[in-house]
């Protein structure tokens, strides 16, 4: 009984380790390069360095010196979270032994196994982890491109864009109109747009109660829809209108200079417009030839390894893996599987079967938190959901407050896990 698990795992480890370890024997220290220092990349770099005790040379390439989490940036919009508390630097990741390089990765030479940096340097790797997050699909909202992001912010990669959007909403004329152009599936943070509407409504209800919110959405349904719509009705009655695809929500165009949104041919004058375009894997994944015609990078469900390259793993939002939502929690969960596999392949340490999980909390109003979550396992083709749960409509106030408090505990937990 006592030895069953151990002997099973022992066998599994031997089998996997023998695939690749011999090729690397004799070399000084195996090298792992991680592109992108967010929830996926930051976690994988830290875990490999921490758990290998210096046996693996880990380099993290991340242009920003301070990382602002996308999660909780909506709470900052709503006035529930300080901007500075969204930011985390890389000091502690470096202290676990990761070589943190603040530069842009501009190319990957998969034959030579090197990453090209904007500085011109080339960084060699034995295993590469690509975790660049998202980029926007050009032309997905006609009339909008990134050059218009100061007129119509996307605010979907945290940081200064969210500050800008908050400023625009705060200074909006009395009784003005806020329009959100919601993205089509799949996109980062499925409950993000709905939560953002709640947070904007919360802010407006206090400072500009005659203002209106219009959501233009190409999707029939969306994450936590019943919970958000119950919340809009309860806390912000009459403020929010959503136009779904049946009323032209999928046929939208913007004119940033004129601050106009054209919905199914009808021109709507707006005061603040938040355009969240369609999304795809961060550009470097495409440059490295790791994406397919979906715009995302397909991976094997058991270990997040690129289907295009044995030595490359793709993590988090950029990956096309199956049932897991694109979230910081998912990326962090996937990173731990990848860290275990890479360390096993490079050092012979034990490799355990993958397991993934995700929970997404959202805030609807003061002390009114909800959550949705699931556990996942690798299936034959893709990652599949095993069990799932979601908050219910009509829950009592104490439970909602506890869920909100739990979300703060989670935030502090995950950033401690990555950056702490």
């Amino acid at each position, binding site marked *: 009984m006592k030895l*069953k698990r151990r002997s099973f795992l022992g066998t599994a480890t031997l089998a996997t380790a023998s695939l690749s370890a011999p090729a690397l024997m004799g070399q000084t220290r195996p090298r792992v390069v991680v592109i992108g220092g967010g929830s996926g990349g930051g976690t994988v770099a830290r875990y490999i360095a921490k758990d290998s005790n210096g046996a693996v040379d880990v380099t993290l390439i991340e242009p920003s010196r301070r990382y602002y989490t996308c999660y909780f940036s909506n709470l900052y919009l709503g006035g529930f979270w300080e901007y500075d508390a969204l930011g985390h630097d890389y000091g502690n990741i470096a202290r676990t032994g990761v070589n943190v390089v603040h530069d842009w990765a501009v190319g990957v030479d998969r034959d030579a196994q090197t990453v090209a940096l904007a500085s011109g340097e080339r960084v060699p790797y034995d295993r590469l982890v690509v975790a660049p997050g998202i980029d926007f699909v050009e032309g997905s909202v006609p009339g909008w491109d990134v050059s218009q992001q100061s007129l119509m912010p996307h605010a979907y990669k945290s940081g200064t864009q969210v500050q800008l959007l908050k400023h625009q909403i705060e200074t909006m004329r009395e009784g003005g109109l806020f329009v959100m152009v919601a993205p089509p599936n799949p996109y980062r943070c499925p409950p993000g747009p709905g939560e953002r509407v709640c947070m904007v409504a919360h802010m407006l209800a206090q400072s500009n109660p005659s203002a209106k919110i219009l959501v233009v959405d190409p999707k029939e349904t969306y994450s936590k829809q019943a919970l958000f719509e119950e919340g809009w009705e309860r806390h912000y009655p009459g403020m929010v209108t959503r136009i779904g695809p049946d009323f032209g929500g999928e046929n939208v165009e913007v004119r940033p200079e004129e601050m106009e949104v054209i919905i199914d041919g009808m021109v709507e004058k707006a005061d603040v417009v938040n355009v969240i375009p369609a999304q795809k894997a961060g550009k470097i994944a495409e440059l490295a030839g790791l994406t397919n015609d979906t715009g995302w990078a397909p991976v094997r469900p058991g270990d997040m390894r690129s289907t295009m390259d044995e030595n490359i793993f793709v993590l988090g939002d950029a990956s096309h893996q199956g049932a897991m939502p694109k979230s910081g929690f998912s990326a962090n969960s996937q990173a731990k599987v990848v860290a275990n596999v890479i360390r096993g392949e490079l050092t012979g340490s034990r490799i355990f079967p993958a397991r993934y999980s995700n929970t997404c909390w959202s805030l609807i109003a003061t002390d009114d938190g909800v959550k949705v979550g699931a556990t996942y396992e690798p299936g034959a083709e893709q990652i599949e959901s095993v069990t799932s*749960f979601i908050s219910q409509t009509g829950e009592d106030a104490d439970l909602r407050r506890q869920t909100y408090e739990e979300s703060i505990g989670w935030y502090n937990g995950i950033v401690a896990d990555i950056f702490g």
Partner: protein
Amino acid sequence: MKQPLKLLFCIGALLAPVQTVAQAIPIGDATAGAEIYRRECASCHQIGDGAQHRIGPHLNRIFDRGAGSHDDFRYSEALLRQGRDGLRWDLRRLDAYIENPRALVSGTRMSYRGLSDPERRADLIAYMRAYSDQPQNIPEAAPTARGREVNLSAEILSIEGDIEYGEFLSSECTTCHQRSGDHAGIPGIVGWPEEDFVVAMHAYKQKLRPHEVMQSVAQRLDEEEIAALAAYFRELGRE
């Protein structure tokens, strides 16, 4: 909440003269339970006419009451949390709590070692039941419903956890529960006695403890994996 009310009427009917319906076996011997209550519980908990909160809350109408739900009693945060998560005192849960309070509610302030003899617990609960007017959660017609809550064999409790595997598994926990043991909004899990950890996880696995995230995490952990986690987090507490 319609369902329990209906049940209440059904059971009310059953308790009326027609004793032959169903195999309405008593939970236990309430007379023997009175004596157990006096020795084990009465120094902290009052029950019966005019009972007041003392060291512990009074126990009138405890059945079907939400955990930590007397507004005028100061409970531990742990018990309040469980109450908000939906813990209600039905027969199974009362039985589990009396057997080992800290196994069901790890942070409870009730400093009671527990009552291991199932028969004596049954007697005690039969006595307490007489002071509840909401006995609908007592499945008298289904004696199999009574039993140990987390029925863990000595074999399960003695599994030696594989710490290295536990370290890998722990990475799922540390997305929320901090490795440092810090806790705010989410409980700390570092440095627990292994047995408490094992019992708690099995209680989530069996959905005895309420909390959807934990139930879903625990559901796919097998006995050895739970032991591995318990061993790892105990070790982490020693660092």
